[in-house]
């Protein structure tokens, strides 16, 4: 009996020793495996950086049409037709992203944001020429849901069959623009651009106290994430860099009602002026250069235009594009 117990104990002890040995090895292995003699670096490892693709169509560079009239739907369609129609820009199966200006939670009549009617018309035209999908996005200043709701853009997109992409945090990816001073490892609303092949920028014509004017190029500000308002310390250069970052298929500058004062929020009908002009084109700089006139400003008052031009984004001399000018 005593012997049996001894044997049992010995066996128990061996099993236990094996377990203890295994634990010692495990502890040692964990120590060895995870040992880090060096402290973490000054900043967390940079995540891989992304870049927006080029969505422009080379053979359609430097196109511009200017149509005067009161009805946005009519002027927009006429302006597009003048450039060969939507089928010139959007092909069958294309996936289109509309970058609207939904910056503020204010109603369309205050013209602080892209007019919903433009979203309706463009979405319908895209689908008409065979687009596979149309999405609408922006990273507004005010609460995103309220912005898309109150501006009427969400409703317009829904009824026309476009999908609104709200700027959720995980849609932003760090971007470093080649030879840029400002957009370095900066979060950009990248995910909506990942699966599309055409981009249309749609901006209203607005006064802007810091930069002088907010039109097509300033509208790309809505693609920045993070604490982007830090760039107001160098507004003209950030607009220039944004203009080099985004190469759109088409831009629409809505000068039907221009915000002449108190921009970019406006807030009163007395800030607005009927300027009854719709500009459609492929040259962002030319569009903004023309828009400056609608705001009674000289392009020299908007230094970002010259800066973008110097970077080769487009031309400030919109007359050189021989824009097609029509009136309805």
């Amino acid at each position, binding site marked *: 009996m005593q012997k049996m117990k001894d044997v049992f*104990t010995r066996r*128990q*002890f061996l099993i*236990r*020793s094996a*377990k*203890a040995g295994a*634990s*010692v090895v495990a*502890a*040692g292995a*964990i*120590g060895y495996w*995870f*040992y*880090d*003699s*060096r*402290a*973490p670096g*000054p*900043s*967390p490892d940079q995540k891989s950086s992304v870049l927006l693709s080029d969505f422009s169509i080379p053979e359609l560079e430097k196109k511009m049409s200017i149509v005067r009239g009161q009805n946005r739907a009519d002027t927009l369609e006429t302006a597009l037709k003048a450039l060969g129609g939507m089928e010139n820009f959007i092909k069958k199966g294309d996936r289109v992203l509309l970058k609207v200006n939904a910056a503020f939670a204010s109603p369309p009549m205050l013209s602080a944001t892209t007019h919903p009617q433009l979203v309706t018309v463009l979405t319908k035209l895209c689908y008409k020429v065979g687009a596979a999908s149309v999405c609408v996005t922006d990273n507004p200043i005010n609460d995103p849901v309220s912005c898309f709701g109150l501006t009427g853009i969400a409703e317009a997109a829904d009824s026309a069959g476009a999908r609104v992409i709200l700027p*959720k*945090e*995980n849609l932003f990816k760090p971007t470093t623009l080649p030879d840029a001073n*400002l957009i370095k490892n900066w979060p950009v609303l990248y995910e909506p651009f990942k699966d599309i092949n055409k981009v249309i920028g749609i901006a209203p014509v607005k006064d802007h106290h810091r930069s002088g004017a907010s039109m097509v190029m300033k509208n790309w500000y809505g693609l920045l994430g*993070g*604490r982007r308002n*830090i*760039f107001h*310390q*160098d507004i003209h250069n950030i607009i220039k860099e944004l203009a080099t970052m985004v190469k759109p298929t088409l831009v629409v500058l809505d000068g039907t009602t221009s915000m002449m004062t108190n921009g970019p929020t406006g807030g009163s009908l007395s800030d607005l002026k009927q300027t009854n002009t719709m500009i459609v084109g492929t040259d962002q700089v030319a569009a903004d250069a023309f828009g400056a006139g609608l705001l009674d400003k000289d392009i020299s008052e908007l230094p970002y235009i010259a800066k973008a031009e110097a970077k080769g984004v487009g031309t400030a001399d919109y007359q050189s594009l021989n824009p097609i000018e029509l009136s309805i």
Partner: protein
Amino acid sequence: MNIITTRRICQVFFLIIFLWFCVVTTLGKAWWQLRGWPVNWIIQMDPLVGLGTLLSTRVLYAGLLWGVATVVLTIVLGRFFCGWVCPFGTIHQFVGYLGKRNKRVSEKFGVNRYHSGQSIKYWILIFLLTAAIIEIATDVALLPRNRLWLFITIALALLVVIAIRAVRRTLNSAKRTIFLYSTFIFIWLLLSIMLNGDQRPSASLQIGLLDPIPLLYRSINFILLPLFDRTVLKLQTVPRFYDGTWLIGAIFISAVLLNLIIPRFYCRFICPLGALFGVVSRFALWRIGKSKEECIDCQLCQKNCEGACQPTSQIRISECVLCLNCLDDCHHGLMTYQTAPSATGEILSPDLTRREFMVSAIFGAAAISTLRIGGRIGPNWNPRLVRPPGSLAENEFLTRCIKCGQCMRICPTNVIHPAALEGGLEGLWTPILNFRIGTSGCQHNCIACGNLCPTAAIRPISLDERLGRNQYSSQGPIKIGTAFIDRGRCLPWAMDTPCIVCQENCPVSPKAIITREFFNTIKTPPRLVVKKAGELTIEFQSDVLVPDRFATGDYYCVVQESSDIGRRRIIANTANGLRVSDVLPFESPPLADSRVEILIRLQSPYVDPKRCIGCGVCEHECPVKGQRAIRVTAENESRTREHRLIL
């Protein structure tokens, strides 16, 4: 030599080493100052620090490798650290001895009996470790989403193992096991789908709250040594202040005094490090036990049992702190430290049910996420939370800081303090800079805190990196914040009083505080009508001036309604006249009956945010001593991009 004496010598040795390391954590070159003493050794030996940071950061930082040695020894020997090394344990044991010295034997049996509450320390351990592991756990939970094949492999491997085990028992149990297994996989998948939100839970290291080593360091560093500094035995030239240490003191005193009721109260009921050792010691090769089952049941072995591990009956191995008192107290030589299990049986596992484990873990996981709802690490960050130079970004900082207070102890200027709730509840007792206290702000040429930090919550930066020199010149100096001027409190700005102490003391070159000169009419201008005047002197018609009142060099005079608009510095004044500096004599002296005005020359300070590093020397020196007229907040601190102030 008696084994008990050996143990006591060992305990005293480590207590002295500990206290010695506390003492020598003083900046200086004397033999009793920092020099090269390995002052973090005992922290590094603490495997809870190693394990905690490993779970929260996925690395074992440098010296924390010592913890592996402690764990290995514990696996082989049992909880030797508690009974032989831990300085806090030694204090408890001593105070506990004082408490029970005059008690009857039966009372000693009473206080040293096992108490079911001793499992509380395991709840605490699990709570703290889940808070640390939550990020890794989330990554594992997200496996089906991110690495489907790895997930399938793991799932299949688990299925095979479980199936073999189940089939080896009965078919009935196989059915149940497979059902359980499927539920587990289902929950895993469900979690994976649900967890893909914008905000993932992040780890937080909170072991420092109750880990005995950091706790003792805090208590000694912030309370005991500063008290000594107020005697002739002082270690520092200037007595030290630490803000808000009442709570640290209260916890320390309570932990020590509770030993008078139950010896080693903290070790038995609270200590998460002891709990960790309790878990690790389960396979110990040698353990305490009875060599024979038959004994007279005198229970004397339980009389002085430090761990309350009931050696008389079934000994609880996880509670035994290897004090070896039972070996000494058993008059029959039955208690031994042996390889065989105790003859009266033993209980290996901590007294903790699966349900209790789960509850603790769930609360640990939920606690941090709940605290983070406050947004303290995101948009609701507190600008008053200025961390020492080299501190990691806040979310990483909180995965490393163990609140030991070594940075606060070594800081030569006493500017680092234990935070109260400035960094939220998670940031309790983490380092925060208080520029009002101490001998100056954060010294420009000092990198002591980061090089002492045992977990690299404050990185060990070089002087070059701190100052942005040599290979760091492109990224510039490390900034811990930015100074802001409160123009309503600033003497030149608000009160027409020359000062610019902040500008003078700014250690940055070129200075981060610039000044602009301006002249103000003095606040209560006297009526000064000229009687007669010369090139350098003016005599007034009446005695209106206090002699020498305007001779400080800061006052100027100007003739009103005159073509000569030059301001002339006053160098002397009598009751009815003044003399101006000969730098600019009057070409045509002011005419009789013309009026003269006195101006004060002021320099108003401005901060250049591009140069300011947030060292707070300006705030410390500001003569507006209550609420300073220039104050540093964490804006523009290098450690967080989102806090950048300027391009």
